[in-house]
């Protein structure tokens, strides 16, 4: 409770209310006010989520901070919120990134500032809703609503090909979601009239139904993750989105898909999950290896990091579908870490883009000479992306590889190639952009980070290092929930 109000509801609605206030500041005459309001709203939005971490009881997998109210009585739909060890970190991650995104767009966004800031605030609240909803229709409402602000962010403030990217993003994700909706309605009729996700976990289903439901969920979640072969929207969306949009996409929106696998696919259709695990693992490994190679060939920095994201998310789905504790915890840690690292890398590229208006690797060279502080931060995040021990990137990848070895050596072998490819594409990009002789006059005129940018990067650097050196605060909170989920998934739900 915060001031007598339930924590999760505050975490959802506070940013949304601030978003509406920011919108109300109107046109760009009031831009400074809109910026300040947005910063205040997003910072408050982060502060109110802290009780979720401090007050979280670690030794149970039950839902905590539960709120349950009637919403649509006709269909037995409830306003039902709660967190467990799996979702709580993502709530914090979401709230954590919103002020950073607001700061990152502080000077860069000059047209329709209020709408830009408000979109991010509203999206932040909605994404927290996705992570905390325990009623599947409530989940679905948040899940779809999330598309609207992102669609506008890419389309209004994006790059030259933004319209194509925005429409592609929207339709791709809508296709998956609609199939999921049919699956949810089917489950509602099977569960005897309940839309509660936890009730879905208990419904017995024959194999055919499980497989069809799994496929419907797969479309919804795999598109968001994104898994090979439905990943093609991501590079377009990332390249065209403004920096803040890319950060939120990489740091949070991709996690939503992976979260869906844990909350829906695996516990609701455990038998189908086991049956189709081979396919999922294969797709994950293709993402890890093939997309890693694709990343190597990119000439656009943002595209490179986008492909690197897909490759890293391949690790996450691999960790899920090997069904052991190392794999799943590693995957969750990888999700959190990738949130920080990919977010940070997109912010780095944003810093360069703001100054040079180019994301082409070939346009750079010798940036270390003109922006030494930036080069140092960029180095740290690049290393974390590679998975260097001591950074957050190492923990998750290492655990997933251990988990994979236990199942099949060759899974681990294929997955571990990412350590080579990842190092290759990240460091090669870093070398071409940062080192060497100053490439041209534009690079020579570059100015180093401003105080605002330094603050953003310092916060992120501290988190990346902190999580790498001491991951316990992140892993202990999910421990019990992960184990119980694995126990649940191991039990067959086929009717006898």
């Amino acid at each position, binding site marked *: 409770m915060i001031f007598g109000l339930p924590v999760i509801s505050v975490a959802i609605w506070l940013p949304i209310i601030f978003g509406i206030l920011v919108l109300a500041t109107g046109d760009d005459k009031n831009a400074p006010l809109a910026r300040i309001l947005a910063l205040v709203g997003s910072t408050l939005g982060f502060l109110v989520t802290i009780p979720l971490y401090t007050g979280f009881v670690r030794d149970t997998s039950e839902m905590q901070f539960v709120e349950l109210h009637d919403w*649509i009585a006709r269909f037995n739909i409830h306003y039902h919120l709660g967190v467990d060890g799996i979702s709580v970190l993502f709530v914090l991650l979401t709230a954590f990134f919103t002020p950073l995104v607001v700061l990152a767009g502080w000077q860069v966004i000059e047209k329709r500032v209020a709408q830009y800031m408000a979109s991010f605030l509203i999206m932040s609240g909605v994404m927290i809703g996705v992570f905390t909803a325990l009623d599947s229709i409530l989940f679905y409402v948040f899940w779809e*609503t999330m598309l609207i602000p992102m669609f506008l962010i890419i389309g209004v403030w994006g790059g030259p090909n933004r319209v194509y990217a925005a*429409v592609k993003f929207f339709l791709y994700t809508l296709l998956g979601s*609609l199939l999921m*909706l049919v699956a949810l*309605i089917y489950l509602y*009729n099977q569960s005897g009239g309940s839309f509660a996700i936890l009730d879905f976990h208990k419904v017995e289903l024959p194999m055919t139904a499980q497989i069809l439901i799994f496929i419907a969920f797969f479309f919804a979640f795999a598109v968001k993750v994104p898994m090979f072969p439905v990943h093609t929207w991501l590079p377009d969306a990332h390249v065209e989105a403004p920096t803040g949009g890319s950060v939120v996409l990489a740091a949070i929106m991709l996690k939503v898909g992976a979260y869906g696998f844990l909350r829906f696919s695996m516990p609701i259709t455990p038998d189908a999950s086991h049956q189709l695990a081979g396919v999922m693992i294969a797709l994950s490994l293709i993402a890890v290896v093939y997309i890693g190679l694709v990343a190597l060939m990119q000439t656009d920095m943002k595209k490179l990091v986008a492909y690197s994201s897909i490759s890293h998310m391949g690790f996450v789905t691999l960790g899920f579908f090997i069904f052991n504790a190392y794999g799943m915890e590693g995957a969750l840690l990888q999700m959190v870490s990738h949130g920080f690292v990919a977010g940070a890398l997109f912010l780095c590229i944003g810093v360069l883009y703001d100054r040079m208006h180019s994301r082409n690797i070939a346009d750079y060279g010798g940036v270390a000479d003109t922006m030494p502080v930036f080069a140092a931060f960029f180095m740290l995040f690049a290393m974390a992306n590679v998975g260097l021990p001591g950074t957050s990137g190492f923990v998750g990848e290492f655990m997933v590889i251990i988990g994979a070895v236990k199942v099949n050596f060759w899974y681990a072998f294929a997955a571990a190639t990412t350590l080579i490819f990842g190092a290759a594409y990240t460091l090669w990009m870093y070398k071409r952009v940062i080192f060497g002789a100053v490439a041209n006059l534009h690079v020579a005129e570059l100015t180093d980070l401003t105080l605002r940018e330094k603050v953003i990067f310092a916060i992120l650097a501290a988190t990346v290092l902190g999580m790498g050196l001491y991951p316990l605060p992140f892993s202990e909170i999910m421990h019990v929930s992960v184990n119980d989920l694995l126990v649940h998934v191991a039990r067959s739900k086929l009717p006898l």
Partner: protein
Amino acid sequence: MDLMTNLMPAGAEIFMLAMACVILIADLLIKQSGRLVTYLLVQLTLLGCSLITVGTHENGIVYAFHNMFVDDLMSDVLKLLTYLAVSMMLVYSRQYLTVRGLFSGEFMVLAMFATLGMMVMISANHFLTLYLGLEVLSLSLYAMVALQRDSAVATEAAMKYFILGALASGLLLYGMSMLYGATGSLELGAVSSAIKSGAADKDLLVFGLVFVVSGLAFKLGVVPFHMWVPDVYHGAPTAMTMLIGSAPKLAAFAFVSRILVEGLQPLVQHWSGMLIILAIASMALGNITAIAQTNLKRMLAYSTIAHMGFLLLGLLSGGIEGYGTSMFYAVVYVLMSLGAFGMIMLLSREGFEADTLNDFKGLNQRSPWLAFLMLLLMFSMAGVPPTVGFYAKFSVLNSVVQAGHVWLAVVAVLLSLIGAFYYLRIVKLMYFDAPESHAPIDVGSDSAFLLSVNGLGVLLLGLLPGTLMSVCAVSVQQSLLLH
């Protein structure tokens, strides 16, 4: 039965008819400058009708005029919503019509007669009453479309509407006569029990049913009987398009559900198969063809076809739940289409129709608030939460799945994905493109206010859809008799 017990249930209809005649005469004495008086009189009549409808409401089902007329909860709810829709239509179109010199007494009296037709359709319990209501509505609409005499497009639209409408009426009457021949009755309850008793000739019944369903499909505008819809929507002045595209859908829902559900329930396995074909064809053709349209009114016409297909899904899934969801869908659709046409009229100026897609370019820069409202309406039509359009689709899909047609639900969502594209394009034009004209948007304050209420209503009902859903479900439950 004494006279008063017969007249009371039809009180609102009688009042509407009387006032229409009074206003028709009174309007002769009013100069063009005082036309606002007529307008206010019409609004007052609608208010009066709603008071009478609420006042004469009785629990249960009341029959009058030898079972030709029925007054139940569903009819009362639908009538109240019809008054509301017509009244909103008048507010939206006042400015638009004034500028075009169409703000005349004829327009308003015809609108009143159209409303009367809808009311009769909603309350009919007899093939003849149903037909009577339908014709009163249709004839008024034909005349309204033709009201703009010097516009070639409008005249063409009226002509097309009239000829195809007359054809549809013919089909419907022919089917009804077959049913009459087979069952010996025109009253819905008696028809139903005659079919159930098994005495009626099955072949003759199904033969008649095909014609009735075709006639209904014509009136609803579903594929393959949809050809009139785009031309009429496009050609008619937008105010008339709004009238055709809004309230009559409520009456059409009542009409279809009374005939098929109350009268022909025993033939459900025959007509639900026909409706499946009609529904899939409408959703497919409506959604795909809408993509190619450059005129917003035409696009909305195709979108209507798709929406009507979706509405049929609720009906064909059978069961009282399904009929309730169809009614909810119809109500939601009317709300959205009023908003969309209202927006077109609001953006139109003297001698300029804002009815092509290009007119919406850059609306966010010209007026962020109107762009936001249109965004809500478009996402609602596409069925994206948190707008009410989502719940309309959701509840229909739910009843389809409940009826065991999971595959049909999958087809429906895939087709509505195609539909999402063209709604999304409007949003894209408004938000991502630069405006083509910078003409200030002159906003009649009453219609802009109503539009805000309408747009926010779509959002608010999306956040709290429970009440409206229950009202629809309960009123269908208490009214439609499954004989």
